[in-house]
């Protein structure tokens, strides 16, 4: 069967910014939807304001709001229009577009879009089939509903950061790769796709009120349930595992070089002992059983670390995997970018940006056939699709279009 892009006939208005919302919208674009990012000519998505990127230490040329790779990554496969939504005429223009739209995505403060005539109540009257995804920090309702948050603020607020740290020490934090954002995106994409599937039959739209902290709490169920059941307060566990030992990240030869090692059962433990040359300490009978090893994780980690640091990471990985023990190099981001495994899986796709030129963007990490998506374009230049959207789709005359620009409606 030739590939079908599942969302080919969908039109999406994207009011979101930063990471979580734009990522959901970019994914829809990758799978065929026409995504229109609604921007303001001056108040920009702060992902456009991340500064001038460097390549091999040299600042790149071109307008910095257009050439940032972070913005490209979260906004590929989108059109860009620029409107001053505080102006009534701008709201009217969007209202004309609403009947032909299927989805709206926003991650602003609750109420922000209501104030510019784009709230769910108002737009669902124009188009009752519309699926409207709101994804705020803590949800549309409740006493904290206007809380402002970046990802680690959310993971602090919901108790997750307090679990990050070294064992038997106080909480450290922090998940500075912004776990809350991609986690929110995937937990918002799912109900959105379910609604997109359902609306084909019911013809009835939906307001999805997604809470990003609740998204984090659904994946930290284990300590939450333990607290509910036993009143036990979770604390940092570092790299330890409840049942596997040794299980952790150990030094390898060199400066700041590390490998992960996870010994899943007692047979693997014996293989590891063999690999280590059967040292006396490792042959102690009390360490034959995983429960006993897990109880003495610290002592175990110390001696394993002394052994691992004699070898280069690649040697350990090859040797331990060879006897069936999970072991990987702890890579930095640069190493990940050129890792042959990810490259072989086609995790990044080459696209051409009109100003930056050829670049690699991560595709949605699903290797699938028959209904696969692919990245068709990098991020849009600010306002590049004003003419197409307002003249071709909405049918404005050239004269009217120019009037709207000079009056600042199209900003």
């Amino acid at each position: 069967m030739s590939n079908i892009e599942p969302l080919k006939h969908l039109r999406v208005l994207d009011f979101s910014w930063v990471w979580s919302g734009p990522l959901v919208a970019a994914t829809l674009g990758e799978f065929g939807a026409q995504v229109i990012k609604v921007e303001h000519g001056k108040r920009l998505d702060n992902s456009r304001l991340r500064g001038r990127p460097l390549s091999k230490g040299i600042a790149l040329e071109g307008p910095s709001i257009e050439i940032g790779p972070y913005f490209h990554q979260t906004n590929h496969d989108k059109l860009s229009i620029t409107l001053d939504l505080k102006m009534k005429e701008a709201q009217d223009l969007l209202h004309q577009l609403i009947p032909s739209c299927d989805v709206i995505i926003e991650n602003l403060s609750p109420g922000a879009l209501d104030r510019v005539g784009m709230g769910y109540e108002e737009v669902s009257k124009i188009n009752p089939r519309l699926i409207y995804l709101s994804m705020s920090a803590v949800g549309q309702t409740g006493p904290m509903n206007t809380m402002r948050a970046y990802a680690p603020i959310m993971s602090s607020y919901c108790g997750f950061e307090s679990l990050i740290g070294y064992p038997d020490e106080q909480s450290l934090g922090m998940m500075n790769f912004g776990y809350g954002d991609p986690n929110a995106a995937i937990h918002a994409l799912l109900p959105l796709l379910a609604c997109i599937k359902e609306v084909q039959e019911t013809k009835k739209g939906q307001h999805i009120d997604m809470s990003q902290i609740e998204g984090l709490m659904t994946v930290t169920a284990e300590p939450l349930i333990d607290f509910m059941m036993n009143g036990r307060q979770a604390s940092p566990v570092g790299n330890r595992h409840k049942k596997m030992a040794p299980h952790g990240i150990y030094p390898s030869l060199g400066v700041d070089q590390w490998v992960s090692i996870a010994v899943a059962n007692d047979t693997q433990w014996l293989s590891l002992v063999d690999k280590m040359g059967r040292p006396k300490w490792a042959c102690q009978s009390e360490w034959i059983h995983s429960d006993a090893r897990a109880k003495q994780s610290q002592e175990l980690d110390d001696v394993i670390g002394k052994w691992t640091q004699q070898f280069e990471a690649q040697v350990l990985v090859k040797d331990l995997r060879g006897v069936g023990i999970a072991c990987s190099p702890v890579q930095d981001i640069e190493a990940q970018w050129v890792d042959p495994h990810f490259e072989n899986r086609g995790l990044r796709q080459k696209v051409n940006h009109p100003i930056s030129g050829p670049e690699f963007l991560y595709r949605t990490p699903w290797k699938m056939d028959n209904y696969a998506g692919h990245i068709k374009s990098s991020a849009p230049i600010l306002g590049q699709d004003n003419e197409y959207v307002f003249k071709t789709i909405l049918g404005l005359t050239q004269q009217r279009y120019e009037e709207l620009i000079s009056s600042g409606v199209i900003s």
Partner: protein
Amino acid sequence: MSALSKIKVVECGDFISAAYCTKLLSEFGAEVDKIEPLEGDSLRRHGPFQGDIEDIESSGLFIYLNSGKRSIAADIQTSQGQLVVHRLLSKADVFVTNHPLQLRQSIGLDATTLKARYPNLIIVSLSVFGDTGPNALEPSQTIDAYALSGTAWVIGEPDRAPLSIPFFQADYQAGAHAASAITMALIGRDSAIKSNLLNQSLGASIDISSADIFAVASGTNGLIYLCYGLQKWVRAGRRAFASGGPYPYVILPCKDGAICLIGRARQEWQRLIKAMGEPAWTQLERYQDLHAMGKDYPQEVDALITPWLMQFTRVELLGMAEKHGFPIGPLRQMEEVVVSDQLKHRQFFRRIKLPNHGFIQVPGVAWKMKGQNEVEDSDLFPVAPRLGEHTHTVLI
């Protein structure tokens, strides 16, 4: 919500990732048959248990992830067990597995073999490394996803071991991604049917790797480090390295604990200054350049802010953040989160019946549907199946 109410899902795996995937599908009405080994899923022995008393029917995490599913106990390595699997697959729309590739290949449950037999089936595998690439057949555990992807590298103290993130996050992410990919494929299948492509196979194969997922998450954020002259992203304890750009991006102490303080925009910094009562130092030129502050002397700025923070509790600081409009997050313990008014207002937790008596409380889902088909949900959810409770329905 009944978007997937006609969809039959067969889950054949162990532990979290496959179970979380089908749990999410069942939230939208999918029917899930769970094939467990004769001794039961390992999650049944993982807990947490009430009073730490192990009981395969009362594992909290098993109940959370398997409420409302049917349990079929079968040894898939025997021909009898495989008969059970194929009986279920012959009527299924979706097959979800997280068994290792070698095992799947040896018993004919790999995508290539299944595709030939069930051209309309959506076949989904979840693993750490995925089914292709140089690592596909290597041994793996959840921790490998953080190691290989660059995630662990950036968490922890600079002079100590990198940290992974706890409680099997990579498994949950694989599950959530698989559920979305399946729903995407089902939308595609609907449109193939609508376009009368019925003479072709309507199935698909989906290969989900948690290492891929974390590589994308960390790698996306890593792109920020290409900007601002921050060429290398390393771990920096309670701070994002070099503040990830402008100051602040840090966890700092306060009167009764700690708070996470992050500002990306100049206005956010100005609002914080206002909340602090505009102390004289904030007017100095040295504290105007947020990027220099973030990169070159963040500790110096921490030291200026901390005495002010130490006067207030987390709740008081959160109140000021609300009033003045700057982003702050109290570092809270689980016990504080569970009783928070926000979650109570949202009725986030749900109750699931225990097999014998009583119920346990577990997290609900991250979304509420407020549109036109609003249904009143009872907060008491169906029990998780006993081991093999529904085996007989397949054997008849």
